[in-house]
């Protein structure tokens, strides 16, 4: 090991030095990562050289073509309209999913002690909704809802509901256990424990998670939009397929601006409530 030149302390016979163990761990991690890399490259047909060459080429291509031109700016009002729609959709989806998730989390958490079987059932349902990708919901909903804003709404709703139910259960278990115990000792009933104990003590965490899911849903709704031909994702796909890259670039820039704006607002709110 470089940098360690002090006299070594005597090491007991059957005990390996911490530096040897460390070196061995690093070697094992390195070999493991290399193996994963090699196997994955073969399976996916990934060419490392192509990959490295593609990046500078892509960057210069983006710099040439993705700069919004005059035509793109003339479309800005349309883009802005869809952008606002996407932002409102993400907020609406997250708020609706959060209300439902809060109810199911109260049923699913161990602190309210409603019924262990209901609790287990809620957790299984939440795991199902969390693990079915929103892409699947989007494709499924396209059958009946068609190219409608509700397709995206429900696709995002199911996934968000699954994620938030789990995080709300964890938050309530973690934050409220003590105060619920205290309230129970004073003889409070279920509703009193929920409104005086659980909700006030876990509200900041819950709001923080809601803000996080709004950020995530804006990005996810772009993908759902590409797939279901709605919202801002559709705008991008449309311009992109027409090879109107200037306008597509403007869509990307406006999405970035929206995401960063929402991230900044969320961070400010988190500072105020935590």
């Amino acid at each position, binding site marked *: 090991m470089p940098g360690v030149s002090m006299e070594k302390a005597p090491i007991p016979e059957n005990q390996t030095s911490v530096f040897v163990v460390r070196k061995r761990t690093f070697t094992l991690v390195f070999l493991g990562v290399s193996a994963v890399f090699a196997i994955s490259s073969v399976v996916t047909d990934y060419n490392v050289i192509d990959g490295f060459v593609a990046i500078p080429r892509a960057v210069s291509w983006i710099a040439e073509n993705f700069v919004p031109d005059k035509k793109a700016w003339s479309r800005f009002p349309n883009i802005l309209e869809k952008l606002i729609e996407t932002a409102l959709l993400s907020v609406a989806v997250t*708020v609706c999913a959060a209300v439902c998730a809060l109810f199911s989390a109260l049923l699913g958490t161990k602190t309210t002690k409603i019924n262990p079987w209901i609790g287990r059932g809620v957790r299984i349902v939440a795991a199902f909704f969390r693990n079915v990708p929103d892409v699947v919901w989007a494709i499924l909903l396209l059958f009946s809802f068609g190219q*409608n804003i*509700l397709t995206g709404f429900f696709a995002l709703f199911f996934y968000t509901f699954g994620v938030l139910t789990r995080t709300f259960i964890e938050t309530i278990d973690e934050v409220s256990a003590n105060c619920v115990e205290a309230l129970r000792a004073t003889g409070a009933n279920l509703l009193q424990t929920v409104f005086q104990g659980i909700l006030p003590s876990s509200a900041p965490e819950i709001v923080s998670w809601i803000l996080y899911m709004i950020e995530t849903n804006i990005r996810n709704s772009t993908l759902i939009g590409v*797939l279901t031909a709605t919202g801002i994702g559709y705008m991008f796909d449309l311009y992109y397929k027409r090879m109107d890259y200037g306008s597509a670039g403007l869509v990307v820039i406006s999405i970035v601006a929206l995401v960063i704006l929402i991230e900044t607002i969320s961070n400010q*709110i988190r500072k105020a409530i935590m």
Partner: protein
Amino acid sequence: MSGLVVADAAPFALDLQKYMHKNRAGKIKTAAMSKNGFAVKLTVLVLLGLTLYGFATFDYKNIDIAEAVAGTFDNIKTMFGRPRLSYNTLAGALKALFVTFSLGALSTVFGAVIALFGALFCAKNIANPKAANIIKSFVAFIRAVPTILWVLIFTVAAGLGSVAAVIGLTFHSAGYLIKAYAESIEEMDDGIIEALKASGASFWQIVFQAVLPSSVGYMIAWTFLRFEINFTNAVAVGAAAGAGGIGFDLYMAGSHYFDLRELGFITYMIVAAVIALEMVASKIKSRVG
């Protein structure tokens, strides 16, 4: 026993009215107004208002919601109740699943390597603050672009295939992991770094002898979490950008062959894979965390 009747002469003057707040109805308030509570209430109110405004302004295109919901329920029944492969063989579907898995793995490895160096130059406790700020804003920009857009953009430059998918997924992973790694490095004990600096250790010596050994556990946990996300993203990118793997089969089954039963079968495979990954990740997390 004269000690029992001192009630009319309290030993200290306690002005209860000063500490007791009453509401308009004359009842004693049990909860004090706090700044945090106010911010929470305001946030919730604004979000509810935006939701209502959103529902009022969305363009529903006169859809018959009852009919659509009923149709969806029927479809869900067929999809999850009678899964079957007809356009794809089981071996083919498993291979596609493995391709998606590998896309996720490859982009996680690339993302982790990039993020390791990125994080060293933007963790507050070891990096130059000016460089850290520049890297952090650059990374925030990269993270703000949705993964699917990176993939589509690289598809034009590199052609349709695994290169576009891997690079597109890598961009977002690297952005995410740089932030996560930097936070794990920032959490470490400053005393260790100071001690090494005082003994004249160079930057790389500090990195290899102190920073990496003390935060490698967190980093591995974050990397596996990201691998889980990359797997689902690889499914999504396969479906929306035609980047191959199980996601593309999903898209073909649903939006090309309109075969709900095949869609159901593939969904079950994906869910099983995601749950397996989640179990491995939580096991690793509990071991290193």
